[in-house]
């Protein structure tokens, strides 16, 4: 799924004038509509890669599940956005089609928590490090991140101004 415009459902976190674009697990979205907010939920060990070009007014968000496509090559063919090493280049490619430029893009990461059920796998940590690896390979610097911990997060990325709001449940915990 590349772009998934949802209905204009308003929540307390999203202004009533904004259209919400929901990104699910293993999906990504790109938007150049100032009235849109890209939203992704339940970032546990998953990582959201958030791009924003202020000049072109383009925002993009990837919600990936695992670090490398080699973990499940069949799934990677069907759903490249599920993996960091295939999803991030895809996100960049799509965002550049909308006019985003790498030398202007801000990059922020959210997620990578350690899910209590399987603490020894360190999937969240691996996902964050994989994202850092791919971003550096793509020649991008990380501007900010809100990663680790044990709690799931929700992310709202405003296309109009690049504001990134991070929630734990209904409570906003950070704005970047």
């Amino acid at each position, binding site marked *: 799924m590349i772009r998934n415009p949802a209905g204009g459902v308003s929540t307390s976190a999203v202004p009533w004038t904004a259209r919400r674009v929901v990104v699910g697990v293993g999906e990504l979205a790109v938007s150049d509509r100032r009235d849109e907010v890209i939203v992704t939920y339940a970032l546990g060990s998953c990582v959201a890669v958030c791009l924003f070009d202020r000049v072109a007014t383009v925002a993009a968000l990837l919600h990936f599940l695992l670090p490398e496509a080699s973990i499940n090559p069949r799934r990677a063919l069907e759903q490249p956005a599920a993996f960091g090493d295939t999803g991030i280049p895809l996100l960049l490619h799509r965002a550049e089609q909308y006019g985003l430029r790498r*030398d202007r893009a801000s990059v922020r990461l959210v997620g990578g928590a350690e899910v209590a059920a399987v603490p020894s796998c360190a999937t969240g940590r691996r996902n964050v490090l994989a994202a850092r690896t791919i971003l550096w390979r793509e*020649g991008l*610097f990380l501007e900010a991140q809100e990663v680790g911990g044990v709690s799931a997060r929700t992310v709202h990325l405003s296309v109009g101004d690049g504001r990134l709001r991070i929630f734990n449940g209904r409570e906003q915990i950070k704005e970047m």
Partner: protein
Amino acid sequence: MRILIVDDSSMMRALIKRVIKLTELTGTEVLEASNGAEALQILETQEVNLLLTDVNMPEMSGVELLREITRRDRWPKLVRVIISTDGSVSRREEAADLDVRCYLEKPFSPEVLRHVLNEAAESVHV
């Protein structure tokens, strides 16, 4: 602007070059040396604005290089940055005495290096 990277590790020099290329430092020329003696030869023949030097190198260390630069007193506007694994207080104090603008401790991320480069570049008067 002309930057001189002094490090006996070609991989470290490659990393620094890449960060320079990807930063906002447009129109920058990058020179390289693998030790302090080579660096001095370059300084004698080319105008360099910003020097990034490792500390532990063969033939002439980064500290020896900086002491020699200070002694010769021919490059007063040269902005100096040390890159070192040694984070000890005494090493940092030694660097301060050598008119070092920034002290970058290894290991560092590309973002930290970019920040140091931008900060040092602001001190450069081309």
